[in-house]
């Protein structure tokens, strides 16, 4: 069991807090510093030549989020980036909800198997998480393309005369996102369900509640922390996804990450890319706050536990 301890006088042999110092220093240099740099860059001017920034304060990158400038220098409202933000949030929400719908049955099903099976089944859910995201996304390039297995089967069986274009659509992006992050939803819900005493559900059932009612009134409230943790764990990485929209959306369904990548690549507008990143961080924080308010404390525990159950 987890042993809860607060810092007290060091006891022999248990090490000391300074054992963590090298790690903390490293993380400050390579996690905190990059975030700080991003915020700083977002208030600087773009370099005239090559990569990087010019050290001159401006809020221009944030203005560019909403306005575009014509060659004559006229500023006009431009919803392009707002639209991309909106799409990203929308796709991520849909992804989270689809994952939720798929995960509740499988998580509860696993939780009601005999204990020795559960470990194996959970392991089977985690394996895809540990394989390369690039390869998992590429799998859908194969599956969804015009002469891929799905279209092959549909045209081969005479259901369709022409292949149905699925690749390079928002649908493909969302399928890829669901596939990428599904384990993040199943695991926390399972972690909650595993601790739930199913005899309570049995009791309600014996007392005459229908299965649907038992599910809605007893089981789902019990796994609520897992559901909320799962929504966070899917929504946030989906929001920052680069690969699924890049390889499956085919440029037509750019999400924020693709626009950011373009600013640090061909467009060479680092300050604007930095401003977009800051907006992503703000969105992530807003999402975390919303979830935290909805969940109070329960889901943070759920999120931690599910991360640990992953390992």
């Amino acid at each position, binding site marked *: 069991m987890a042993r809860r301890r*607060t*810092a007290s006088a060091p*006891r*022999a*042999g248990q*090490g*000391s*807090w300074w*054992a*963590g*110092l*090298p*790690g*903390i220093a*490293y*993380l400050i240099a*390579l*996690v*905190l*510093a*990059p*975030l700080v*740099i*991003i915020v700083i*860059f977002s208030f600087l001017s773009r370099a005239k030549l090559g990569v*990087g920034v010019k050290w001159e304060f401006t809020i221009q990158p944030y203005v560019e989020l909403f306005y575009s400038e014509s060659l004559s220098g006229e500023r006009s409202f431009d919803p392009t980036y707002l639209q991309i933000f909106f799409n990203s949030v929308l796709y991520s929400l849909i992804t989270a909800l689809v994952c939720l719908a798929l995960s509740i*049955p*499988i998580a509860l*099903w696993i939780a009601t198997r005999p204990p020795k099976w559960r*470990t194996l089944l959970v392991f089977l859910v985690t394996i895809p998480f*540990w394989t*390369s995201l*690039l*390869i*998992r996304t*590429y799998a859908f390039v*194969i*599956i969804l393309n015009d*002469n891929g*297995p799905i279209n092959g089967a549909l045209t081969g069986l005479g259901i369709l005369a022409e292949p149905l274009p699925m690749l390079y659509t928002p649908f493909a992006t969302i399928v890829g996102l669901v*596939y990428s992050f*599904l*384990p993040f939803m*199943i695991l926390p819900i399972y972690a909650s369900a595993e601790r739930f005493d199913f005899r309570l559900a049995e009791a309600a*059932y014996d007392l005459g509640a*229908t*299965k649907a009612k038992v*599910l809605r009134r007893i089981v789902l409230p019990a796994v609520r922390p897992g559901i909320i943790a799962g929504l966070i764990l899917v929504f*946030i*990485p989906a929001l*920052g*996804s*680069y690969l699924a929209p890049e390889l499956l959306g085919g440029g037509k369904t750019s999400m924020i990450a693709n626009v*950011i990548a373009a600013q640090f690549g061909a467009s060479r507008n680092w300050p604007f*890319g930095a401003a977009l*990143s800051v907006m*992503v961080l703000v969105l*992530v924080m807003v999402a975390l706050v919303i979830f935290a308010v909805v969940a109070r404390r329960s889901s943070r525990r759920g999120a931690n536990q599910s991360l640990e159950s*992953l*390992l």
Partner: protein
Amino acid sequence: MRTPRGTGTSLKNFPLFGPIAAVVFAFLYIPLVFVVGYSFNSNRVVTVWKGFSLEWYADVLTNDDIQRAVMNSLRVASISTVLSVLFATGLAIGLLRMARAGRTFAWSLIMAPLVIPEIVFAIGTLALFVQIRFPLGVDAITLAHTAFCIPFALLPIRARLRTVDLSIYEAAADLGANEWTIFRRITLPLLAPGIVAGALLAFIISLDDFIVSYFLAGAGGTTLPVYIFGMIRNAITPGVNALSTLLLLVSVVIVTISYIIARRKR
């Protein structure tokens, strides 16, 4: 949704949950099966099956660029594994003895790479390295990977540390062992399974990473996933599948070993 009752007396099975679970498992694995299956296709067009062949494996295994990418990936993954395990072991021990505020701060830093979208982390690190004029390439990638491998290395070590019976330290101290002896002779052996499991997880997380490597690769730092991405963008052949299959195989074998080690003797 109303369900008529009376079928079965036990609640063990909500109607449809079993079949849906089966469909979800199929959804999790069938895409990978296609990746593997088409790697044996003798046709150039991945999804048009012509016949069984191992030629794509021979093709990719003898390609010089791919060999270089594999060497880069192995180098990055090994070094960042060693570094992240060292930091994570220190953090696991240190976290237990930290004051509450320090622990919260350290924990947020450790977990941040898991919460921050990877693209933001990638371009932030890129901006940092360009600013301090640290050259892009394998070393830059290694440093960045080390940071986000730390949480993966840390969790199994921490889980292991929690199972340690504290009285064993006191016994050792009472018998006259000094701090260093206790660490070497007691803490380290007890943590060993956690450390090995954490190292294996860190290794695959680094090996499989694409986005951070992509932005930090510079001219000579192409890792295997970055190379595969280029292949997907340029010309998809079953060669992509063959390489992917090999990478999948490595990941699955390593995670299975890690899992077995972490569960043993709990």
